[in-house]
């Protein structure tokens, strides 16, 4: 507690010193659509040290001494706005920013604040511009923000064509993926080849590589914060796309012009239509669909309500004998309230659900297996802007989790309620973005997190050999875990164009995905802490150097990180993933990850793009694996290179190319063989002792804008995935040779060679 009060004193002391200030505040929107803009920078022109970015709802607040100012508002893809202000009292100033593309000839300056990457205190954060996503080549003609994220240093792809990814040596479940504040437990469709995010419905995406401020928590590797569009509150728009295997449609418009709006977006793949044409697979089904919807309503200048939701489903059926369907549902209701020009509040009630259901309809047995994870989540956040040097956020978050693990039911077997487990996760946090001196900016925060494993369901006691010795069904709290998570990141500006940054963060994680792959699969098991499984703890120290040159045309950054992880989970040797009590198959230990991330980016001009490089190592040490020595984690890759280039040939045409190279994952291969009952048994000597062959691939893309009218715009996108047809291994298996039973061979299966696609996107 001493620590907390000290932090409070530091946080608040600076606000008392200044006197006789007034506040300019308001909302920043896009002029054409009325969509609120996140991260617009409001700067005092004569004193660029004083600035503020608009929050997630487009609200900003700047406190300044009495006087005359020129305030500059700048945002990517929009024209700068300079507004003169004579500040003699508190003032509301709503700003509508003009889109750059609507008035192309007149643009003299670029719309973004050019050196924001150098100035901001948080490090290890990546913002993805949705426009960039639309220019890059894609697989199956479908744009995907999660796949674009994988091209950044420190972020590694989960595999060929996969939307799953790992960050700074984390695993796929150590990423917190939020859609309008709702956790998405499985962010992929169609076995990982599509992400759940329909890029037409997405406004903003930010990725924190383990360095997220204290308002985020619950995962130790990263936070991906995705915000949905609110919907145009000025005009009705219909946009969409038609691709080879999927199509989508997006409708948005005002409910009351300038006050409220709606958005509905849907997608459906139709690969199953082609299946119907084949004799062999005509009985099979394979498709997904998803919907995004959002409503927002402005009650007054001070109150605003948002309701948003996502519903997606994948269906895979092998005749009427076997089918599996899975998907996420999320719902978010948010209420913004402006207490005064310095105090902004948001209350969110969030629902999140992921489940899969397997239906088996055989002669001998008819049953279904249901597995589900469901959250009810209440989040209260206050944002307080005491003066121009501080920006405080504080609040709390309570989540009630319910997990139903693979429950078998049919007409005669009733559901077993004892298998359903509940947990209560809560957190209290405070964070301050503090401009300490002209050069030094500090983001300091503290998060107090608690997890209670709730009784009323079955838990197990295991012996040393991991056999179940006792089933217990306690009431009350089975186990409680309380952690204090400090977060600190700071930047020291060397000059206008360069800065040094450093950060330390601690995160804990109470929900764990038990998976056998790097990218995850729909039937992987989510479990929460139990009497046996403890929260994962991640401590990360990172440092960075940021440099912009040639008038901010180029950005360069170098970041290093070291992460130490506790209570890491891995399968024991020869684990049975189908074991009824999964704890019998698990072992726990330590992890460490360290690396260097380099990024060189060209932002302006006809030719743009970036080169990213990561040098890294990720290891685990778990008693019972590899003689208790440190070993390479599955997702460990030494080198990871991405080269992304975009070129605007003309107003109509732009082309792009992406090349990636990655060291193969660590993997377990046999070193020898022996015979049991006439079968070849593989002789293994160590876990993850081998490497998959290196992965590399070139993708090409081109976009052509078709003839435009005032009302109607459309474009054609062409992509060629894996342009030089590299046979990247998807899996490698070992088997007896078909010609010589004494010979054993390794067989490599590769998935995608030369996948061309074309899609037509339109808007009117």
């Amino acid at each position: 507690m001493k620590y907390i009060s000290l932090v409070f004193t530091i946080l608040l002391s600076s606000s008392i010193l200044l006197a006789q200030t007034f506040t300019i505040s308001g909302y920043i929107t896009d002029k054409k659509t009325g969509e609120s803009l996140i991260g617009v920078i409001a700067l005092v022109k004569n004193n660029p040290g004083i600035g503020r970015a608009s929050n997630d709802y487009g609200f900003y607040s700047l406190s300044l001494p009495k006087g005359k100012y020129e305030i500059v508002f700048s945002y990517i893809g929009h024209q700068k706005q300079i507004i003169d202000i004579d500040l003699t009292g508190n003032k509301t100033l709503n700003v509508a920013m003009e889109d750059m593309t609507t008035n192309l000839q007149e643009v003299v300056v670029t719309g973004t604040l050019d050196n924001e990457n150098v100035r901001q205190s948080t490090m290890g954060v990546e913002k993805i511009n949705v426009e960039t996503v639309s220019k890059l080549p894609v697989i199956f003609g479908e744009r995907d923000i999660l796949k674009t994220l994988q091209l950044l240093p420190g972020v590694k792809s989960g595999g060929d064509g996969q939307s799953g990814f790992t960050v700074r040596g984390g695993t796929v479940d150590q990423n917190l993926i939020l859609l309008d504040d709702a956790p998405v437990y499985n962010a992929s469709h169609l076995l990982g080849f599509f992400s759940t995010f329909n890029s037409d419905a997405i406004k903003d995406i930010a990725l924190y590589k383990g360095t997220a401020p204290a308002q985020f928590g619950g995962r130790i590797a990263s936070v991906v914060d995705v915000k949905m569009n609110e919907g145009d509150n000025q005009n009705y728009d219909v946009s969409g796309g038609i691709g080879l295997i999927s199509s989508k449609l997006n409708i948005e418009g005002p409910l009351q012009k300038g006050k409220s709006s709606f958005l509905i977006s849907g997608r459906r793949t139709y690969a199953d239509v082609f299946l119907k044409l084949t004799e062999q697979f005509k009985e099979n089904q394979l498709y997904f669909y998803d919907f995004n919807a959002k409503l927002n309503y402005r009650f007054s200048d001070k109150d605003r309500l948002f309701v948003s939701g996502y519903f997606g489903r994948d269906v895979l059926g092998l005749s009427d004998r076997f089918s599996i369907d899975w998907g996420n549902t999320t719902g978010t209701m948010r209420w913004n309230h402006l207490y005064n020009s310095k105090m902004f509040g948001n209350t969110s009630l969030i629902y999140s659900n992921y489940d899969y259901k397997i239906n088996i309809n055989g002669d001998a047995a008819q049953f279904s297996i249901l597995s589900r994870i469901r959250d009810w989540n209440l989040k209260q956040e206050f944002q307080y802007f005491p003066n121009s040097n501080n920006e405080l956020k504080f609040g709390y978050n309570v989540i009630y989790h319910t997990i139903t693990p693979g429950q078998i039911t049919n007409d005669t077997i009733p559901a077993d309620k004892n298998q359903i487990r509940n947990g209560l996760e809560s957190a209290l946090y405070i964070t301050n973005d503090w401009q300490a001196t002209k050069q030094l900016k500090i983001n300091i925060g503290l998060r107090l997190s608690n997890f209670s494993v709730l009784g009323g369901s079955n838990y197990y006691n295991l012996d040393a050999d991991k056999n179940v010795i006792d089933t217990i069904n306690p009431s009350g709290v089975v186990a409680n875990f309380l952690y204090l998570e400090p977060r600190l990141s700071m930047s020291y500006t060397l000059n206008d164009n360069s800065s040094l940054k450093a950060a330390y963060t601690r995160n804990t994680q109470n929900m764990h995905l038990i998976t056998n792959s790097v990218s995850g699969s729909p039937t992987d098991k989510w479990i929460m802490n139990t009497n046996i499984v403890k929260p994962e703890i991640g401590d990360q120290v990172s440092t960075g150097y940021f440099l912009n040159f040639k008038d901010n045309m180029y950005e360069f950054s170098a970041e290093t990180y070291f992460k130490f992880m506790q209570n890491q989970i891995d399968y024991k040797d020869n684990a049975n993933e189908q074991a009824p009590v999964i704890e019998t198959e698990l072992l726990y230990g330590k992890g460490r990850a360290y690396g260097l991330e380099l990024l060189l980016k060209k932002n302006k001009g006809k030719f743009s793009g970036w080169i990213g490089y990561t040098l890294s190592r990720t290891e685990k040490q778990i008693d019972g694996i590899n003689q208790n020595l440190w070993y390479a984690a599955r997702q460990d890759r030494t080198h990871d290179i991405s080269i992304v280039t975009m070129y605007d040939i003309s107003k109509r045409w732009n082309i792009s190319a992406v090349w990636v190279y990655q060291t193969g994952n660590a993997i377990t291969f046999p070193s020898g063989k022996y015979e049991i009952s006439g079968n070849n048994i593989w002789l293994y000597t160590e876990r993850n002792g081998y490497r998959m062959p290196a992965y590399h691939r070139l993708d090409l893309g081109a976009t052509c804008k078709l003839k435009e009218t005032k009302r109607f715009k459309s474009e054609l996108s062409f992509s060629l995935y894996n342009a030089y047809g590299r046979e990247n291994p998807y899996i490698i298996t070992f088997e007896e040779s078909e010609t010589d039973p004494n010979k054993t061979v390794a067989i490599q299966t590769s998935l995608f060679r030369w996948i061309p696609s074309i899609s037509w996107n339109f808007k009117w």
Partner: protein
Amino acid sequence: MSKYKRSNILIIFLLLLLSSCEKEINIDLNNTSSRFVIEGNISNFAGESVVKITKTQNFDETTPFPTVSAAIVTITDSLLNKIDTLKETSAGIYKNSSLYGVVGYTYKLQVKIGTETFTAFSTMPYPLLLDSLVQIIPKEGDPVPPAGTPGAGSKQFQPSYKNFTKTDKYLQYVITRNDTLLNNLIIRSDMAASGFSFPIPFSVQSKKKDVLKINIQLIDKTAYNYLSAANRNIGQFSATPSNPTANISNGALGFFKAHTSQKITLVVK
């Protein structure tokens, strides 16, 4: 026969759907030092006890597995302390035609190779008599697994028995088809301890008029765990592939099981 890919049904489906391609590749795998592999059993019928001793090989070796001769192999009844010796009948195969086990007794296998001694223990489970074992005939219109997929060309069989014990029973079906011994390790657990026991069917690659001789063996949990781990190893199903945990001391691979036998002959319909 059992060339399953290391994957689940989803991936099999995916591979079929997409333009995947397979090819043989060269991987530089490490050499290993050679280890002994001992596989032994004792049944409640005389003449069924066999101990086989072989050695491991490097992955790229193309000769048959080397056998180990001149070992001293004994099986000891732990209650009466009666020692029986098994004689080498062919290279690496040790037998004793008069030896049989008794239900509930624990047996000790001892193998001496040169100066090294390996021991293993197993208890013969109480028997469980099958009421019947019948072939499941698919109804008309039921879909048949397409050729080339696992399950194609196989017939299903349904055992029927009553387990009143409320403890799990572990079964192994050792099958000869037209007098050829099948290698498949077919094992089933009836999950009686969980409350809803039902005998689980199994399938055998066969065609009409094939003669199947099925030896239904009741095995103990250690043998069951070993064999299911061996199946995960063969099929490369496990996320963390490893050697099945042997119940033999001193670093030998393999296992020793005491089991009861019940034999049924069927003609495939």
